């Protein structure tokens, strides 16, 4: 198949190698730098004359000029097959628990392990017969993987129509064992096993067509689903200053989002945050299936002290795995935290390549790289008529919390929803700290539009009154304005804010949002009459307390009805009847 060629190191600058070669080399092919016993994985990122420049995914200490570099002829790829779910991989798809079992506390340089277990067997059921015609992506059979039926598909790299020459009978197979033989239009034979490989930087396109993302993806975060919804197959971003709640928001989304599979790509952030997920998820129950949350989760973990060059690989690895499960007709959510760290890795490399820098020294191609990444999200119709989707949500960590910077701006141009977190709201502990006036979404939500627009207008006016009161004081504010202000604060306190750590409040299903929001909307619309401001304030304090309690009880409990009745009575007492 592919032959390996050798080159020689001519220069080393950080993790960038300049390698002299004599036989053909491909852009983005994988190479290994040899240093004694060590083989360090690298990727070719630029070729000039007879010099290939390669970024090493490891520390380059001890490498020498003259050391051999082995070019593999293969692009940076991942393994696709049963056993991916519940795994914890590094950015290059090395399984971290297995690495720990072999090397102990520290990540050992040059140590790579196969992503999929080679010994484990899977119960294969064929879905085609000898003589059938198939195309790339078509199911040849299936194996059960946890709660899913994992389709074993015609390798995506094969072109045209293929004829099934042989198909294995039902039984137990390892990922490497042959289960089918296919003949292509040129008469060449291809063997198929449960596993295939795919280069991470190329989108998988084995589908009939892309559809417009229209169906809401419920995250159970009220401010998101009601005000700034995400669609299945859509894209969204969460920019925010440090500590504003990006990671917590993604963590609760990874728990409660109404999708089949969640892929968490921890890219250049804290190891501790991933540890929380990987230690807790196995013990948490997925309310949709009653099984452990870990069964629908896959973690790609390339934290900030892990090799910088692998950050870029980690987001591509994540999205490729997402596309793979999408090909099975599943809805997949990819959460990347933080895309800025990946952009910074690009910037570091661009600096070493001495490219002409753009704004804030980011490379000029930053925007197109970001756009191409989010383009990999989408809803697709597969050849068997089923629908699959990849939804992408990325956090952005702008320098100084200022959104006028290249990564935020490039991202905003391509995503379908913007959840901007504000320092002001996080300082005031108003979580989730999504700024309700600046954020936006192009997708449809779970609550009728006119109710949402009315509420949004109320928030805006409430904010204006609040500004004015800072100047003229409460005394100088009319009671009508004051009530507008109180209504806006009420909406904020009981609906926009949500307690991520409370059993019930943390996740509000779509039907409950519709039910509750209709009533909140009723309060906002009601013409209320108060004798004086203190009475108005007291009324809203009590109502807020009551509705907060309401948020904390299960919808099917008697208390839910009870509290609702009390709130309705309270409201009736102060409603002015014309």
């Amino acid at each position, binding site marked *: 198949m592919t032959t390996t060629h050798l080159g020689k190191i001519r220069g080393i600058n950080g993790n960038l190698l300049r390698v002299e070669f004599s036989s053909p080399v491909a852009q983005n092919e994988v190479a290994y730098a040899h240093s004694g016993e060590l083989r360090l994985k690298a990727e070719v990122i630029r070729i000039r004359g007879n010099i290939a420049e390669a970024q090493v995914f490891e520390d380059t200490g001890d490498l020498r000029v003259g050391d051999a570099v082995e070019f593999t002829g293969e692009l940076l790829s991942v393994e696709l097959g049963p056993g991916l779910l519940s795994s914890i991989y590094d950015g290059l798809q090395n399984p971290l628990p297995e690495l720990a079992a072999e090397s102990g*506390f520290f990540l050992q340089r040059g140590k790579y392990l196969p992503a999929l277990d080679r010994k484990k067997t899977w119960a294969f059921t064929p879905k085609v017969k000898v003589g059938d015609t198939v195309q790339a992506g078509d199911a040849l059979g299936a194996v059960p993987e946890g709660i899913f039926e994992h389709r074993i598909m015609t390798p995506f790299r094969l072109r045209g129509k293929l004829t099934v020459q042989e198909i294995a009978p039902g039984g137990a197979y390892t990922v490497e064992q042959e289960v089918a033989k296919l003949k292509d239009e040129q008469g060449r034979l291809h063997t198929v096993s449960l596993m295939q490989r795919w280069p991470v930087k190329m989108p998988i396109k084995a589908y009939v067509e892309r559809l417009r993302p229209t169906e809401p993806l419920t995250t159970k975060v009220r401010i998101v689903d009601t005000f700034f919804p995400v669609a299945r197959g859509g894209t969204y971003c969460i920019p925010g*200053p440090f500590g504003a709640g990006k990671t917590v928001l993604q963590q609760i989304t990874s728990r409660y989002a109404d999708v089949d599979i969640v892929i968490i790509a921890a890219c250049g952030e804290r190891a501790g945050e991933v540890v929380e997920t990987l230690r807790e998820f196995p013990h948490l129950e997925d309310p949709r299936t009653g099984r452990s949350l870990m069964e629908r989760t896959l973690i790609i973990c390339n*934290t900030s002290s892990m090799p910088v060059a692998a950050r870029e690989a980690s987001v591509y690895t994540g999205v490729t795995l997402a596309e793979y499960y999408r090909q099975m007709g599943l809805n997949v959510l990819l959460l990347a935290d933080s895309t800025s760290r990946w952009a910074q890795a690009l910037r570091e490399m661009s600096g070493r390549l001495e490219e002409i820098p753009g704004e804030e020294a980011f490379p000029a191609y930053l925007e197109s790289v970001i756009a191409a990444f989010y383009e990999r999200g989408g809803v697709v119709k597969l050849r068997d008529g089923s629908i699959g989707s990849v939804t992408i949500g990325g956090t952005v960590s702008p*320098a*100084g*919390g200022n959104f006028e910077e290249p990564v935020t701006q490039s991202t905003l141009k391509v995503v379908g929803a913007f959840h901007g977190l504000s320092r002001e709201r996080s300082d005031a502990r108003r979580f989730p700290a999504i700024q309700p006036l600046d954020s936006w979404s192009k997708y449809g939500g779970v609550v009728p539009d006119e109710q949402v627009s009315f509420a949004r207008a109320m928030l805006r006016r409430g904010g204006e009154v609040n500004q004015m009161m800072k100047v003229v004081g409460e005394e100088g504010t009319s009671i009508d304005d004051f009530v507008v202000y109180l209504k806006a604060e009420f909406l904020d306190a009981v609906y926009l804010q949500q307690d991520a750590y409370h059993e019930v409040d943390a996740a509000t299903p779509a039907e409950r949002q519709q039910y509750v929001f209709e009533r909140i909307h009723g309060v906002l619309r009601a013409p209320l009459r108060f004798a004086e401001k203190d009475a108005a304030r007291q009324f809203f304090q009590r109502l807020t307390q009551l509705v907060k309690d309401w948020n904390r009880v299960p919808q099917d409990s008697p208390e839910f009805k009870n509290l609702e009745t009390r709130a309705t009575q309270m409201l009736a007492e102060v409603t002015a009847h014309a």
Partner: protein
Amino acid sequence: MHKTYQQIEQIAGNVIVVRADGIGYRELAQVTSEHGTSLAQVIRLEGERVYLQVFAGGRGIMTDAQVRFLGHPMEIPFSDALLGRIFTGSGQPRDRGPVISENETPIGGPSVNPAKRIIPRNMVRTGIPMIDVFNTLVESQKLPIFSVAGEPYNPLLARIALQAEVDVIILGGMGLKHDDYLYFRDILEEKGALTRSVMFVHTAADPTVECLMVPDISLAVAEQFALQNKRVLVLLTDMTNFADAMKEIAITMEQIPSNRGYPGDLYSQLASRYEKAVDFDTAGSITILAVTSMPGDDVTHPVPDNTGYITEGQFYLRNGRIEPFGSLSRLKQLVNDKTRADHRTIMNSMIQLYASYRETLEKQAMGFRMSAWDQKLLKYGVRFEREMMDLTVNIPLEKALDLGWQILADCFDPAETGIPSKMTDQYWPKG
């Protein structure tokens, strides 16, 4: 044994270039010229050209200086004999003690496999109510103190180190004023803590490159102690000096700066140090407390900004006190449910009332009328600042919680505090 080279081709800033072959990336060399001997490290290889960063700086290096390669990267010895000792940023004794050369371990080693970390679970007691009650420090946390010049951050650091129940204290000083260095040494000595401490000190008068080594050396030693089941507390002061040293070197290397002159990899550089904080699966732990001085009291300055994106919260030191707003221990909820049943209640209600006090102060300043409620808040705020926030207050967590209830009882009726009656019934002081 090791080859010596004598033909220096280029000297720019702290970087010299010699022609040599068979040299490993990041290898150390000894550069000897008339003005003395310094260590240097390979930072770039280009054909036969070897770029070396000279720890003592390029000043005075002659073109015929001797460059002897050592065949290994920067290492630091490790043994219990380090305890009680003081070293420079390049690991040379700064006290009059002997050179130690056992168990040389490379610095800046690989990162911990996330699968071998555990969720932190132990509180670190400091005796400072603003920390213990409101923003509890947790073993293995990485936390900076954001502060402007002139604030007492070094005494605060020393105090926490002395009161924390840890096995080993490692102090990494970067650009320390000589007086501050002596202060740390003397206070550790005086309180009998020097024997469980190791100090790596770069003072403002020492060569810039040595400043860069301090965090790596300190953390490499910390890691070794932690692997021996020790709870290690690492104090780093001041990380802004460390960042500035990186900036200086990046500029002499003609790297393209990203933000206010700082190199584009500032985040990665800081993160690779802070991420050494760890609670090991089956061994000890490393907790990191660092000082990050904020030029111009500006938290959006690249150094505090990047730090905030890396650490697990921050303490703001302002006007000699730890600010309750803005300060945050992101790990506190992992421990403050296991201390005392009223811990979270006191934490939340006292801060909320203090926020109301601040609002009242603003109204007062604008000349608005003060209600009876405002008067109560004013009384409360003054006591809170004097008895809780003042850094001279030094009491255990339980005493601080009791004091909290006392202050509340002296200023308010139970119902006014917004605390559930279940709590006030049990804890509200009688009489």
